[in-house]
């Protein structure tokens, strides 16, 4: 007892200084977090909660100054959205866009990445940059150019098709080709992103595995399927999830190219949600936006489950 008494004082002092330092660290942490948290609470967190609240009320544009003096309508907006044939059509269009567009985007990105990674040595940077260019350009500018290229008579696409004797359709004006045109445009605009991520993922495929496979007489195609793809699986999952999340919110292409037409053939769920906002049906639009969010969460969970199991 008596022996430990002199040792007690410095230990206390040390623990005091540790706790003072911890308090100091906590204060610095909070201080550094504050500006972000203020802006984030006001412009993101609060709106997320408010739109959830809105989706359960009959909020309309006239309530804009008094967003809380509205009637609670429980799940009416959700029921209305799900029984609206136009919304269901929009959901179907979105589903087609995702189911066709995501694999095409990934395949184009992966093909470009594999070709640039091992196939060639010179001009790699030029190709990489060229393929990525559509990603960095404004959709509004892209739309101006693409509408022009896709015009039935004057457009470059149909003139090129005419060289090989094909009578090109009225791409954006025909219900049979309008959604397809937007899918092709989206693949063009987005495959550069997946290419870049695949290129990074390919760095983790060791060349020694390819050499071993080559010694066993594997063809390039077999090596791709049995060496490259399995190692690339986490990257594939990441690209699939992020591309799907993006494509489920398919909005800009129809908005700038077709306004959802002709005959709703390119109307997407987000596009219709935005139209409801434009009509002043804020509650209904909020419910539709949350339905998209729910689908995003479910699809993401399924993708993680399925790829983990197989």
């Amino acid at each position, binding site marked *: 007892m008596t022996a430990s008494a002199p040792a007690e004082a410095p230990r206390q002092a040390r623990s005091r200084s540790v706790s003072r*330092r*911890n308090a100091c*660290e*906590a*204060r*610095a942490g*909070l*201080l*550094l*977090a504050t*500006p972000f948290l203020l802006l984030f609470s006001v*412009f*993101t*967190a*609060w*709106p*997320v909660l408010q*739109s959830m609240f809105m989706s359960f009320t009959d909020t309309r544009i006239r309530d*804009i100054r008094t*967003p809380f003096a509205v009637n609670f309508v429980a799940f009416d907006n959700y029921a209305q959205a799900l029984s609206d044939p136009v919304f269901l059509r929009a959901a179907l269009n979105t589903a087609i866009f995702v189911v066709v567009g995501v694999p095409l985007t990934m395949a184009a990105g992966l093909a*470009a990445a594999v*070709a*640039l990674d091992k*196939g*060639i040595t010179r001009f790699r940077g030029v*190709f990489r940059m*060229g393929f*990525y*260019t559509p990603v*960095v*350009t*404004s959709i*509004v*500018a892209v739309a*101006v*150019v*693409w509408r*022009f290229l896709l015009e039935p*008579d*004057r457009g*470059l696409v149909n*003139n090129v098709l005419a060289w090989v004797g094909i009578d090109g359709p009225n791409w954006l004006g025909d219900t049979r080709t309008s959604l397809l045109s937007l899918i092709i445009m989206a693949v*063009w605009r987005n495959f550069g992103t997946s290419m870049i*991520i695949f290129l*990074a993922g390919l760095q*983790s495929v060791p060349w020694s595995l390819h050499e071993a496979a080559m010694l066993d007489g594997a063809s390039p195609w077999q090596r791709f399927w049995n060496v490259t793809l399995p190692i690339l699986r986490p990257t594939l999952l990441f690209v699939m999830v992020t591309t799907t*999340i993006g494509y*489920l919110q398919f*909005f*800009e292409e129809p*908005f700038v190219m077709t306004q959802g037409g002709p005959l709703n053939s390119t109307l997407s769920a987000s596009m219709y949600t*935005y139209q409801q*906002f434009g009509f002043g049906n*804020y509650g209904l*639009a*909020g419910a*539709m*936006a949350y339905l998209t*969010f729910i689908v*995003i969460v479910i699809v993401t969970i399924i993708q993680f489950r399925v790829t983990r199991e197989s």
Partner: protein
Amino acid sequence: MMQRTRARLWLYIVLTIMLLVVMTPFIWMVLGSLKGQGELLRVPPTWLPENPSLDNFSRLFDRLTFGRYFFNSTFVAVCVTAGNLLFCSMLGYALAHLNFPGKKIIFGAVMGTLMIPGLVVFIPQFVLVVNLGLADSLAALILPFLVGPFGVFLMRQFFLGLPRDLLEAGRIDGASELGIFFRVYLPLAGPAMATLGILTFLASWNNFLWPLVVAATERTYTLPVALALVSTGQNQTDYGLLLAGACVVVLPILLVFLFFQRFFIEGIASTGIK
């Protein structure tokens, strides 16, 4: 060996064709912006302009005040980028290296919003901006984008990769906590800041739905808004004007991209794998 060389040659040919197809809209845009209306309406279309002139561009800047929109776009993008760089790196560092109350909740809440569709927050943000009296102001185009979850994610990942020893060393030297962040860690964050900066600048420059709804007069239009309005307004069949407008929107950002592309591509790749 012979076979390998031939395969490689084919690959170059295929890649070159792909590159041409991908770049065609841009080539077409630039060439078309130099043509007159008569030439643009011709069937079949011409490739090279017969009498190249900058007439479309001068109409864009003289008659339609595209200079003003150019300034607005640049100003908004610079402010948004600066905000993200500063605030996201501050929080990212705090989340990576400091202990403070509520840390886990903050991280969870911020990352949780990464998956939320833009349209979910769109309407309340619009209501908020109107009620704050900010409608049709440049502030309304800046404030909602001043911080974002992606920046925090990126900066936190980066700071986690820097050794904690720097922090301990700084403390032993008697530096303040904030001093350690601003003088030790932040100067090391160049690559991550470059990536975040370019990505944010791009996103802001190309952002168009929010400004289209919030900007109501020519005073606050950004370039994409102006171009969208021209392409649906009374000039919508003035193809030369539209293509020149598309050039003005696309070419500056393309130059920025060319200049920074090394950081850019490495940065996207690193957020992709982690």
